[in-house]
């Protein structure tokens, strides 16, 4: 658990972070979102003491971080950044092994851990372990960056726009990867981004920051339903809010289930795990008012009507 109590940071006369309080519960994925210069990165970097806060208190599992040795603290916290910062003179395996080595793990355990992480991030060890960072694509390098952040098996993971420099398709697949890993490992993650869609997709809780202050913090659903200020509404995309909200709900929630198991559906159909946004798009594209819904095996399990979509409840 991470707690920030009335934390401020000023650089000379300018105040970057102004009296914020925030609690990130264990196993929560908390996303700090805001425009550039709003203090979200500064907040993140104060948690592992890359920047020292000037007022207030930051506690990890109840312990104030200024009581801890900064290097020991950082070795306990995973850290991944946008420009990745892989060490160009070391191989992928050596890069991932940085923190375990700093922690003084025995060599066999490190080797095992590196293999494990390469496997977890879908980078076959035989192919990637011996490569150097300049031989990787952007997406591969960022996977190594995430693996490196996870290497010391930290409870807490800090991620500063880690997917910011990637193309949309790679970014999307890495976001899915992160959700999969998080479902498996249940770390406490603080994630910084300026992209509200990314925040909505990943977060358990979104913290919107503006000019060094927290303007609103809530679940993605609640945030969409009740933006506190015009700034938050603007970040949420104004008129596209409806679509974004639809993007957070699954087809399974609104479909009308079949009483008896149906047949395999040929042609356009929705999956139970698709979002309502995808459902609406498919209806618009097919110019129809209802679509069959199928399960993982392609067997029809229900029907979704456009009316349910509009009312927000099954028909």
């Amino acid at each position, binding site marked *: 658990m991470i707690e920030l109590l009335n934390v401020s940071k000023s650089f000379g006369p300018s105040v970057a972070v102004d009296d914020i309080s925030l609690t990130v519960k264990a196993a929560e994925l908390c996303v700090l979102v805001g425009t550039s210069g709003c203090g979200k990165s500064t907040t993140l970097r104060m948690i*592992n003491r*890359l920047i020292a806060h000037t007022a207030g208190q930051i506690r990890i599992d109840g312990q104030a971080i200024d009581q801890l040795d*900064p*290097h*020991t*603290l*950082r*070795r*306990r*916290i995973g*850290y991944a*950044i*946008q*420009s*990745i*910062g*892989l*060490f*160009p*003179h070391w191989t992928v395996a050596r890069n991932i092994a*940085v*923190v375990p080595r*700093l922690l003084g793990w025995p060599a066999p355990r490190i080797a095992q851990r590196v293999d494990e992480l390469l496997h977890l991030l879908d980078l076959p060890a035989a192919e990637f372990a011996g490569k*150097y960072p*300049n*031989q990787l694509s952007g997406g591969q390098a960022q996977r190594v960056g995430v693996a*490196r952040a996870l290497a010391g098996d930290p409870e807490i993971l*800090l991620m500063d726009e880690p997917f910011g420099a990637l193309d949309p398709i790679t970014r999307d697949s890495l976001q899915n990867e992160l959700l999969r890993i998080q479902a498996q490992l249940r770390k406490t993650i603080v994630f910084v981004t300026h992209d509200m869609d990314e925040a909505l997709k990943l977060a358990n809780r979104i913290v919107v920051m503006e000019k060094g202050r927290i303007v609103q913090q809530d679940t993605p659903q609640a945030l969409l339903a009740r933006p506190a200020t015009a700034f938050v509404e603007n970040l949420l995309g104004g008129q596209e809010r409806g679509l974004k909200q639809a993007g957070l709900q699954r087809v399974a929630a609104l479909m009308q289930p079949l009483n008896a198991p149906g047949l395999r559906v040929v042609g356009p159909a929705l999956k139970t795990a698709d979002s309502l946004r995808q459902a609406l798009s498919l209806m618009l594209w097919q110019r129809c008012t209802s679509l069959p819904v199928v399960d993982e095996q392609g067997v029809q399990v229900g029907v979704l009507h456009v009316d349910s979509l509009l009312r927000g409840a099954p028909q």
Partner: protein
Amino acid sequence: MRLRPVNRVIPVLVLMALALLWSLDFVSIQANRIVPGSSLGLVAAVGMRWALGLSGVLALCGLLAAYVRRPPYGVLLALLCLLLAQLPLSLAWVGEQHITAELAHARVGIGAGFWGLLFLLGLLSIELQQRVRLHRAGLLGIGLGLLLLTLGVAHLGGLEPLALMREYQSRRQQFSSALYSHLGLVAAAVGVSLLLGAGLALLINRFPAIQRSCMGLLSVIQTIPSLALFGLLIAPLSYLSAQFPLLQQFGVRGIGWAPALLALIAYSLLPIVRNIGVALQAVEPSVIDAAHGMGMSPRQVFFQVRLPLALPVIIEGVRVTTLQAIGLTAVAALIGAGGFGTFIFQGLGQAAMDLIVLGALPILLMALLADSLFSLLAAHYRGVPAP
């Protein structure tokens, strides 16, 4: 057979080599050190069979490169090694043929044709190295092999009649002391300026305000011609040594090693400081940020990340400095600092061409060797393959 050659570089070089070989003097024979020698062409020097064999192998190289669809560069490299290996042997052969027992003081001078052949074979080996993608260490190996072969032939007495060898024989002692003083001056200058330069670079890192004036001063020094700087140091140093007898005891005088070493260090500081500064600053900030974020201590960040990433550039600075120092030490012979430059300027004074070559050749070899070694070292520490 097709008309347009596959590789045009090798045939052109081969044609130039053949032209030089057959038009210029291969060697000259002098009755003694004073009288001008008589020049011998290729055939007169080594005989028809050797001349035709040599030319034949050269021509074969050209033809193979030009008219085989995928030129067998490996074979060409082997032929090239053969051509290089015959160089010292041909000189030994010339001696065997032309210097008889009654001409005790007669000597063989190496002619322009021989030097031209050596030069063009050098160009051929550079071209071939790139074609076969031979590692630079391979080229260094071939060079060292040729050097060892030459030394071996010389050791067996095969090169005894060479004028170059005669000059060497008559000043063996001086040769080895020149070697030691040359190497000593270069090593001392590079070592001291590496220490001073590292300190200065760190100082500039700490106080960026002094960067402009420091670098400005160092580049002004670098601009001043060596002969002038050596000369300008003579007067103040002789004044100092006259004032302080202690300095005199250590051998500090207006001429000699003291002004040479001072000037060498002054020249060496610029490339060293510049490269260390650039190297340490060029490390990407995100890498350093990540290193801190992983929990490395400042010491670990410096020794595990900053320094290893900077090392190749620093070694490049040391390479440049060493090459520069080797050349400048040669000039320093003019102010009595010793080294191989002594032979060059003695030779120039006595119009003894072979003595000039005896001084210049080791300098070239030292420069080539230092260049190869430091390049290999930098490549080793770079370690990272090209993307």
